[in-house]
């Protein structure tokens, strides 16, 4: 069972042909924001309300596992300082898109942690570090990473990409 909050997500075909199908998915969303955003993989896109992404804001619910596309991820969490950094720098939308795209593209992901990062060699440099714990062969992970960056190209403003990095713990 995962901690989460239910929202309604509408599934759209990649052709842009909106279907009428709606399902209640467990995602990372909460209901205090009204903006919508896209989450995509090669099969479909989900549009729904956006979350604050902080674990402690989630309501614990029993998940319909058959409807949850992200079950391969055991745990996910976001450091409140990282969240605050994104909020101040107006990066929350990108944070959420990257977070979800990682889950979609890295098939053997075990854990995803988002941390604030201050460069010890240059204190003027700060940003967000997505920490992926993953079980797979390095070559396969690299292939998934290349695919991930192809998706990110379309959805993250170039000026914001400098704030985000992904790091691994591969087992």
């Amino acid at each position, binding site marked *: 069972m995962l901690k989460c909050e239910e929202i309604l997500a509408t599934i759209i075909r990649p052709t842009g042909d909106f279907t009428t199908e709606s399902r209640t998915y467990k995602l990372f969303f909460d209901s205090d924001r009204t903006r919508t955003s896209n989450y995509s993989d090669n099969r479909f896109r989900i549009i729904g309300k956006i979350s604050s992404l902080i674990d402690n804001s989630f309501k614990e619910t029993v998940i319909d596992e058959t409807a949850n596309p992200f079950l391969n991820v055991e745990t996910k969490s976001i450091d409140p300082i990282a969240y605050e950094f994104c909020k101040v720098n107006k990066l929350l939308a990108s944070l959420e898109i990257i977070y979800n795209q990682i889950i979609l593209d890295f098939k053997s992901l075990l854990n995803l942690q988002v941390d604030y990062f201050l460069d010890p060699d240059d204190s003027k440099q700060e940003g967000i570090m997505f920490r992926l714990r993953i079980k797979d062969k390095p070559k396969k992970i*690299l292939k998934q*990473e290349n695919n991930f960056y192809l998706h990110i190209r379309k959805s993250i403003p170039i000026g914001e990409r400098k704030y985000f990095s992904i790091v691994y713990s591969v087992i």
Partner: protein
Amino acid sequence: MDAKDFLKIAKKLLRYNSEANWRTSIGRSYYAIFNYLKQECQTLNLPILGSSKGHNQLKSYLLGCEIDEVIDIGSKIGDLYSQRIIADYRLEEVVEEKTAKLMFEKAQDITKRFPFIDKPSFKTGVDKYIATFKSSTSIPS
């Protein structure tokens, strides 16, 4: 010296069964790619600072050039930099052999991809990016 020689060292270090070697391998993978791309930029008359600010400057040029493939490389060098920070400074964390291997593969992949980038377009893109910061006294970041 060819910066890519650091990659050979990174690969050799993977043979040893110790975390210190794996951490060092990650550092060599990063510096191989940093120095390789720095040399490429300098060849195009895009000098990179020798100080610690050079790391961010290079990443900014790659991210700012408006060529998708190079922008991805810019993100990847940022990833490698962060991974190096963990390897060099966060000794309380465990660094696995496979993580070091992935960083080696990632750095090697960049050295295979960058030669196919159209260099005049890259230089034009970076020059354009720098021009947008012309009035600023700081390095574009």
